[in-house]
């Protein structure tokens, strides 16, 4: 019984290759059914950044080979085209790999929490498809536990790693609760709208949209259930905003020092958070001099993310330690699974030989008293036990190192007993 994983991720394969080999939610049941022909137990994990197949197979080498073949079969692609992008891990390495993936350590943004849910979904889908068994069930459940531990015991997902979340983090640092705050977006643009969406997702109460084009303002406002206004009326809406995201195509400053001074006066100098996404900049940097005005441009937000990612890297070390501990737990369980039957089989094999040899000898020995017969019997038992004692202790303590060898050397798998 061997645990093996074959797959590809963002680190080894470009998106064009990943998208060809990915297995969508809709295709999953069919894929899982096909997988069962290759391995005894299997789970398919397919996200936008990785597709991995975990399997439990009877033989080490063929397990990985057949999983690679499965990739090709499922997608009707010749193996040679993508084989070089696939990696494979076995046994403890496979276990460690899965645990690291579940904890977010293998993700593009280290510490991202979504992957844990995706691992859980992959396991549940395999369970529904009847593809899992005792080993992979335990493996995946333990992986999810390890992932949860990393999430709660380290700060690895704690701080914003994207510009939009950095904006939310800063807004919270200034205002605390965002429920009663108003966000104003001036202009439009992917990054600005994403930042606005993230703010709204995190509780911002009210949204206002200002745009040069009336229609654009109205459309955007409808998206956020907000209030549209014309750019010419910016002066009057500015005081109502606590958070301003500016992203226009204007070549000069849209928000000037006098504008901001007036706005601050009108809002009683309550704090104001300005995010300037535009290049060239929309907001005159001099406005920072004003009290309670906090101006951040994209570079600043990026710097916040960079600093956060460094923190995450530090936390990753803690996470690796947790993963090692959890992997060791699984390994112990896994070993115990195989050790007992192996010891039983070894004893049975030895016992068969002992009985056979004893009866051969007894048939040639005549005139032995019952006491003598017992002595000889005890002799054979003693020899067998003493010879097996050290190997059995070795198996009990370090099973995973020896089980393979013992089963092979003593041909324990031949002729099921």
């Amino acid at each position: 019984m061997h645990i093996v994983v074959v797959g590809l991720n963002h680190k080894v394969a470009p998106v064009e290759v990943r998208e060809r080999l990915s297995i969508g939610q809709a295709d999953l049941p069919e894929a899982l059914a096909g997988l069962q022909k290759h391995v005894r137990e299997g789970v398919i994990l397919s996200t936008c950044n990785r597709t991995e197949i975990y399997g439990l197979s009877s033989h080490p080498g063929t397990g990985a080979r057949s999983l690679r073949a499965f990739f090709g079969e499922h997608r009707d692609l010749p193996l040679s085209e993508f084989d070089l992008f696939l990696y494979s891990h076995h046994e403890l390495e496979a276990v460690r790999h899965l645990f690291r993936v579940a904890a977010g350590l293998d993700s593009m943004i280290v510490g991202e929490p979504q992957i844990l849910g995706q691992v859980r979904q992959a396991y549940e889908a395999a369970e529904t498809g009847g593809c899992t068994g005792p080993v992979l069930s335990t493996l995946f459940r333990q992986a999810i536990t390890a992932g949860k531990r990393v999430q709660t015991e380290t700060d690895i997902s704690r701080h914003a790693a994207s510009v939009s979340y950095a904006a939310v983090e800063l807004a919270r640092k200034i205002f605390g609760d965002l429920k009663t705050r108003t966000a104003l977006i001036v202009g439009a643009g992917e990054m600005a709208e994403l930042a606005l969406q993230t703010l709204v997702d995190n509780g911002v109460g009210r949204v206002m949209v200002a745009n040069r084009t009336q229609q654009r303002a109205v459309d955007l406002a409808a998206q956020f259930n907000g209030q549209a206004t014309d750019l010419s009326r910016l002066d009057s809406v500015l005081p109502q905003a606590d958070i301003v995201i500016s992203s226009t195509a204007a070549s000069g400053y849209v928000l000037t020092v006098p504008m901001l001074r007036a706005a601050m006066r009108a809002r009683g100098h309550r704090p104001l958070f300005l995010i300037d996404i535009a290049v060239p900049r929309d907001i005159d940097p001099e406005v920072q001099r004003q009290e309670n005005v906090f101006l951040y441009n994209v570079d600043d937000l990026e710097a916040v993310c960079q600093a956060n990612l460094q923190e995450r890297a530090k936390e990753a070390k803690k996470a690796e330690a947790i993963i090692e501990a959890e992997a060791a737990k699984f390994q112990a369980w896994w070993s115990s699974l195989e050790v007992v039957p192996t010891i039983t089989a070894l004893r049975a094999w030895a016992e068969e030989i002992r009985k056979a040899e004893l009866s051969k000898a007894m048939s040639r020995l005549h005139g032995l008293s019952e006491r003598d017969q017992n002595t000889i019997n005890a002799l054979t038992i003693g020899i067998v036990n003493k010879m097996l004692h050290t190997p059995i202790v070795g198996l009990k303590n370090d099973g995973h190192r020896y089980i393979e060898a013992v089963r092979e050397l003593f041909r324990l798998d031949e002729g099921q007993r």
Partner: protein
Amino acid sequence: MNTLVLLGLAALLYAGSALLYIWFVATRRLVLGQWADYPLMAGWALQSLALLMRWTEASRPPVTNIFEFIAFYTWLLVLVFLVVERAFSQRVLGAFVMPLTVLLIGVAVFLPKDIGPLRPILESPWLPIHAGFSLVAYAFFTMSFVASIVFLLQESQLKGRRRRRVYDLLPPLETTEGLAYRMVELGFPFLVLTIVTGAFWSQTAWGAYWSWEPKQTASLITVLVYAVYFHARVAAGWRGRRGAWLMVAGFGAVLITFLGVALLSPGLHDFAV
């Protein structure tokens, strides 16, 4: 079990609490901040006992010398902090308030603590009222000072776009500023009452409401600083860095009023017989 022993034990418990708060800020583990409450409350209970004992021993409220003043004032400060901690859910302030409290009690322990006779003039019902009001005001102003310092730390980090781990624990700007303002709002009337009761007492004892005595003058300056703060906040919108610095200046005035005057120039408020 005498007053000093109880006070010492309370200080030890406060020190334990201070350490837990500081550790909390360093490691950002919430449990530490929660545990810090236990030695804190235990210490406060002991300090309450100590003050009660002192009161009964001396048969008068413990406001007759600097030692008693500090003992009572720290008791009030811890009380204000406990309430603020509940109301604003801000444990971080503990890392500032508790060490300060321990330091003050530490200083108080070395001050003369004998229950000596009072100057006849101080044997008056005005004493506990006037002194009590002043201590309440000082406790509130100390809290506003701590909150302002925390505000200034956070504000400078946000303005300067610096990033240091410890800042993450600091409460949001609006919360700290709001807290600081609230503390001044609460402390100010007590300060005014202190001056007013002092004036009436002065009239009955020395026949003059005001004599420009050092402490009186210093209190007046303190009142002025905080009054300027109120006006600046409302009229000129000093809700940010400038307002915070003004509150720090106000606390400076409080310190001068309380300590500077008592130590540097004796006057009406001299306790010695």
